[in-house]
Structure formats: structure tokens, C-alpha cells
């Protein structure tokens, strides 16, 4: 609610890109150095290699004309990662950009065995994919990048309290969907 209010007034500063600056020589060095790292973030957000690569490519294309801002940032990699997250969230808000959701969480118990751990990971992957984008981004930033809530808040342009709420709601959905060990035992034929 607060975010809506804060962004709604016409008196708020509207986020505009800075004037176009010349191409920077270090763009290539940066991409070579951090491609894998950034690609991982993008893939975890989008859920596929292909879309992750598209997302990162588009973000870089957007940042390139204003690359001096990236190099001027305290932590250029974090700056770019934040741009990736932003772009992901805003692009996904348009319904047409959304691929059809194909997650199909089972209502019948699945056969389980020694491979429980692996299936759970896979199942988790599916379940994360079904979470709202901001929850997913928050979970990724905490549990993959190990960022503190304040920094996650910066990525998502919200308050730290909102981050905690996104994460706890995300975890709650996952908990509801993933069977506990006890349930699993009970399910076993």
C-alpha cells in the first residue's frame, strides 16, 4: 500500500535515465568477468536458461548507453543485478509477457524413495516458479545471494519490512506445498 502511495503523486521524482554517455571501454571486461554470476541470477529469476539470457542481455543493452553509472556505483555487479531484478519484475507485470504457467502441483501423493532429497529439490524448483515474482526474487536474493534484508529491499524498491513479509509468505507457500517428513512416511505404501 505504501509503495503505491509513494509512487502515485505527480510530485514524486520520476525515475529517468541520465543523459546518454559515451561507450565505456570496460563494458567488455565487466561482462567477461561477471557473465556467469549475473546469468545465474537471471536464470534463477526467470526459471530457464533461455529467458535468463534474454533478460540479462536486455538489461545490459539498456545499461550500456549509461555505463558510466554502472562503473560509478559502489558495487557495479550489485548495480547490474539490481537492474536485472527490476527489469524482471517490471517486464513480468505485463500479462502478455507471461508465458503460460504450466506448473501442476500434484494432489495425489507421489511415490517416494531414497531419492526424496532430489525430488524435493526439483519439486521446490517447480514451486518457486509458481510464486509471485517479487516473492521469488526476494527468496533468491536471500537464499542464493545471502543478502541482508536491507539490500534486498533496495533491489526490490521496497522497505525491509516488506522484504520480510515477501519472504515469509514465500516460505509459507512452499511449506504448505512440500510434504514434511512425517507426511512422507505416512504416504509410503
Amino acid at each position, binding site marked *: 500500500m505504501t509503495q*503505491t*502511495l509513494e509512487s*502515485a*503523486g*505527480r*510530485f514524486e521524482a*520520476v*525515475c*529517468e*535515465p541520465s543523459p*546518454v554517455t559515451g*561507450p565505456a571501454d570496460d563494458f567488455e571486461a565487466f*561482462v*567477461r568477468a561477471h*557473465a*556467469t554470476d549475473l*546469468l*545465474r541470477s537471471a536464470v534463477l529469476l526467470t*526459471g*530457464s*536458461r*533461455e*529467458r535468463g539470457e534474454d*533478460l540479462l*542481455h*536486455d538489461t*545490459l*543493452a539498456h545499461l*550500456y548507453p549509461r555505463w558510466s553509472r554502472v562503473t560509478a556505483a559502489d558495487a557495479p555487479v550489485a548495480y547490474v543485478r539490481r537492474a536485472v531484478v527490476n527489469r524482471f519484475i517490471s517486464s513480468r*507485470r*505485463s500479462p*502478455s*509477457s507471461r*508465458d503460460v504457467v*504450466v506448473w*501442476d*502441483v*500434484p494432489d495425489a501423493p*507421489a*511415490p517416494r524413495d531414497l*531419492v526424496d532429497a*532430489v*525430488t*524435493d*529439490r*526439483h*519439486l*521446490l*524448483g*517447480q514451486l*518457486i*516458479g*509458481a510464486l509471485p515474482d517479487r516473492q521469488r526474487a526476494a*527468496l533468491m536474493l536471500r*537464499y*542464493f545471494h545471502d543478502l541482508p534484508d536491507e539490500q534486498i529491499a533496495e533491489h526490490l524498491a521496497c522497505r525491509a519490512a516488506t522484504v520480510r513479509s515477501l519472504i515469509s509468505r514465500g516460505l509459507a507457500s*512452499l*511449506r504448505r506445498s*512440500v510434504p514434511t*517428513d512425517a507426511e512422507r512416511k505416512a504416504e509410503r505404501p
Partner: protein
Amino acid sequence: MTDNIERQLREALADAAQSVQADAATVQRLLSARAADAPRSRDRLPNRRGGTGRHAGWLGPLLAAAAVVLVAGGVVAVTRTTSGHVSANPAPAPTLSAPRTTAAASASTGTPVRVSSVIGQGETVGVGMPIVLRLSPAPTDSTAFTKAVQVTVNGRPAGGAWFWEQPTADDKKSHTIEAHYRLKSYWPAGSTVRVSLPIGGLSAGSGMVYDDAFTDLTFHTGDAHVSVVDGRSDTMVVRSNDKTVKTFAVSLGKAATPTYAGVKVIMRKGEPDPATGALRSNGQVRVTGPGYDVLASWALRLTASGEYVLAAPWNSQLGQVSTSTGTTDVSSADAKWFYEFSQVGDVIQYTNTGGTTLPSWDGYGDWNVPWTQWRAGGLLANHG
């Protein structure tokens, strides 16, 4: 705090990330982001969506080997995907880019015009909220823009019109112009409005082309809150989706400082404290004038010139006489209720206030411009 789910999640994410490596081809593709004509993913979308029905499953490709076996038991119906990663050089589909290239051929270079929106992506606004785009430097010709930009309501063409104005002296100084879009009457309640702006590279007038950074805006409308304030009875009737939900006493501007008449749109709820940047509590705003400087609670801003609906515990003549400096004074209880009820973009119609009609440029005075005049386009004429 760490429980099973958190540990599993960590492991799942780490596993998935582990298998992602940016190989040489990927790096090359990423480096191509430098080229102005680099294929952007949206240019390829028609190709991708073109009926192949391919949907990449989350982490599907990453855990493919394990997944195929384990999922077979029915854990999750993964996808119909075969989504191995496609090559680093996917063929761009010419369908989208071709017409753009043609249109931009005569104007592919020039000063870039930046576009931003007052309505945020995904926001929900009231039915009176105009789409407001801010463009800088100000285009001098809107022909290409109005032809290219599409607005739909729930997927159907909206049928509204763009109106160009420079609401403030600052806008003139900074060469900023606003393009406002509205329908003949308010948006339908509970709708999704989508604005598609394939304008990158199109001419914005001599020596100017639109930036391609802002291509798409989607927002929603909430319930239709259309309230009526009558200065003769000093009452406000609050209506939601054509039903009266509340009526309460108000006090408007006195004769020397009358409240504007006409249609107003709620611009903002409360205001941030300049010291901290956070919203003040209780919807407070600071209102100042000759002899007063107070923090008023539950304040909804209606005009750029400074009209509000606010809690006025100091006003003992609500419903009797209009005594304010132009604000709509309401009791604290009613103001709190109305504040919580309202959303940015809600409509309040003012009649019998003794004031002139709110001009189009003062806040969202858009609805006070007659439709025929609106359709003509304002500062930049609409053609066709």
C-alpha cells in the same frame, strides 16, 4: 529460524545455479548488447510465441536428467518442454522490427526523447486517473506517437485520445511535456489497461526520436469511486460502483477563497516527510498560509494548487458554512474513513462552490476539458 524448507531452498538454488555457466557463445551474445541493432528479446517474441507452445519449466532444463525419471511418477507434470538451451544466435524474427525500421528510416537519429509514466507498472488506480506520460525533451509533432501507441481496456481498443500539455512553468523550463490519455468518460471499474508504446526510433519532430526504454505500461482500475460535493448543502455524497456508501458534512472555501468547481481526481494520499522521505503518519500533510502552518491529517490532494480533502477538527461549521481557504474540510472521523476508502485516481465532482472550474493543467483537471476539445490534442494537434 532456519528450518527444513530454508535449507532445501538453499540447496535447490545452489544446485540450479551450479549448472549455469556463461560459455563463450553466451558471452559473445551478451557483448552484442552494445550494438544498437542487437536483436532484443522482444523482437523475437512473435517467433517464440508463434504457436510452438514451448514453455520452459522452472529449473526443468537444469535438472532435466534427474527430473525425467523422478517426475515420471507424477510428482509434477513438468512441461511440454524440450527446452534445451537454444543457440546463442537465435534468428531474429523480422515481423516486429521490419515496420519499425521503415517508419524510423527517415528519423532514426536525433536527440532521444525520454518517456516516463506517472502511473506505476501494475498499480491499481481510481477510474478517473488519466494516463500521464512525461516526455523530455518535448516532442513537437505527435503524429508518429499517436499512430503507434495502442491503449486497450480488458484487451479491447480503448477509444480514448491523447492530450498534450505543459502543466507547470518548470515543465516549460525543462522542456518537458505531458501526454494525457483519457476516454470520453471514466475508465470502467475493475479493468486492466494496457499501453503499448512501440515508439523507439520514431520521429518526435524535427531532430528528435523517441528513446526505446519505455515500451509498455499495464495498470488496473479499482472500484468506481465517484463522489459529489455540493457547496449549497455543504455535503459530500460518496458513491462506489453507483451506490451511495456514505454522506457527510463538509465546509468548502469561503467567498474570498472559493473551492474550484468541476471534476477533480485524487492525486495523492498524504505526503512524505521531506526529512525522512517516508510517508507521514495518519495521512498528514503540512498546509501553510497566512496565519497558519499545521499538519492536517487524512489529507487527499486534489489539485496541484493545493486543494485537499482533509480532517479539520478546527472547523466547527461543517455542513453549515463554507469557511476554508479552499480545502474541503471534513470531521476527523469522516476524513479518516474517506482516506482509507480512497485510492489515487478516484473522482470527486464539485458543484455550487462559488469558484471557477478547475483548469485542465491544475492537477488532473483533465475531465474539465470538453471531449471535442480534448480529442483535438491540446498543445500538439492530433491528426486523423
